[in-house]
């Protein structure tokens, strides 16, 4: 019987019988976290960029200003609502609410991706906005002075710098998502935490299963943060540069 085994033996026993289930659960967790972080970043960038479009009272038409303000207000509401409520409640609200209110039955997978993406988007929108306004105003003025439009200034000068500044936040969101997808078991997503609950419940081995699951979560989050650090390093480029000799300059001239 399992109760005759010691702690290590029990863990090995569980792994032997349920190892694949844990791995599948971890895979589900990882896929939801990765895809949703990606989509969330996309949402965040779009919302953050639109939130920082300046209005020119003199040159922009009334219609343009009206719609811009309207969209900005709607985005503001979106950010407040999704940052200000727990994701577990959002999951229930969307999964069951959409069916009852709008008569749209979202699959649990669609709901899962939707909830985590929209949630991440709300956080990222604020990070992106912060990243944009923290880039020195001189960069904007330098770009305007050579005739760039707001859009060009954003694309070529501000966003590349803002992106670098918010890289740590993207990493943060990915790690949070890896952990927080666990709340999706409420809509029956079989993620790592769901597997844990099933296994622990079946064998009455809560501590052992939790140990396994902790180790798996930690492996995923540490790996994620390491990879992101490598990417950051790569973005920073080398500290040195090569003096161009006459040949390089000649090549450039050709």
């Amino acid at each position, binding site marked *: 019987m399992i109760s005759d085994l010691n702690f290590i033996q029990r863990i090995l026993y569980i792994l032997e019988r349920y190892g694949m289930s844990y791995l599948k659960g971890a895979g589900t967790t990882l896929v939801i976290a990765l895809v949703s972080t990606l989509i969330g970043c996309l949402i965040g960038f779009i919302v953050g960029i639109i939130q920082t479009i300046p209005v020119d009272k003199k040159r922009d038409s009334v219609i343009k200003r009206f719609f811009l303000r309207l969209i900005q207000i709607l985005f503001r509401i979106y950010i407040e609502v999704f940052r200000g409520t727990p994701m577990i409640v959002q999951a229930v609200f969307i999964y069951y609410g959409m069916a009852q209110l709008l008569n749209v039955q979202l699959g649990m997978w669609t709901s899962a991706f939707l909830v985590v993406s929209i949630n991440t988007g709300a956080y990222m929108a604020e990070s992106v906005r912060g990243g944009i306004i923290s880039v*020195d105003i001189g960069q904007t003025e330098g770009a305007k002075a050579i005739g760039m439009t707001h859009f*060009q200034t954003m694309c*070529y000068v501000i966003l590349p710098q803002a992106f670098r500044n918010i890289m740590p936040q993207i990493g943060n969101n990915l790690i949070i998502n890896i952990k927080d997808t666990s709340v999706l078991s409420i809509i029956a997503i079989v993620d790592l935490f769901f597997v844990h609950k099933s296994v622990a419940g079946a064998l009455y081995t809560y501590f052992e299963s939790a140990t396994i699951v902790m180790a798996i979560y930690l492996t995923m989050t540490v790996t994620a943060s390491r990879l992101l650090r490598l990417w950051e390093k790569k973005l920073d480029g080398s500290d040195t*540069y090569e003096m161009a000799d006459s040949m390089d300059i000649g090549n450039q001239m050709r």
Partner: protein
Amino acid sequence: MEKENVILEVSHLGKNFGTHQVLKDIDFKVQTGDVISIIGASGSGKSTMLRCINLMEEPSGGSIRYHGTDITDSKVDVPAYRAKVGMVFQNFNLFENMTVLKNCMIGQQKVAKVSRDEAGKKALFYLKKVGMEQYINARPKQLSGGQKQRVAIARALAMEPEILLFDEPTSALDPQMVGEVLNVMHALAKEGMTMLVVTHEMAFARDVSTEVLYMSDGVILEQGAPEEIFGNPKKTETKEFLSRFRNC
């Protein structure tokens, strides 16, 4: 005909920040080949005036005519106008995310829609002119202040502007780097580049410019040839300002 080579005509220019009236009724003209130095005490409105000229600040009143067109009019294409009026800043404002070469190419490529090859050639031509061609692969943060400012000048020149605005281009530099930037500006002036230079470098104002404007408290108090302003200032305030400079 004199009228034909007037590039800019500023009339009754005013600027308020809230209730603070920073510019009051500024009038002057810039003709092709002019090198106009703008001097005056700190806070007199020199930067604000320069920034109004390329619409970094929105003027509160008056007009700025560029070849006859009032660019304060709401229908004017501001980016297109700015592409013709270069600006060099006290703090350089080079794009931190680009190499020196790219800094001098991006405006040509994206604003003037010049091909990559063409932009590269022109960028290099102007970088040579300021003596920075060896640094094409460097990033701004790897350069000294003087080097950054020379690249910034090359970046502005690469747009082939009709007029260049300088806002205290040497004020953020260590003394030993001031010379290299002033030399570049001096050479540009000799080549006939039209320039508007806010500066505290009185030697530059005296020796290089064709005209000097002395600003005080939001107005142009005195203006004239450098020999007049420096040799025989009419207003006591101008005299006092200049004598303070000789002392320090």
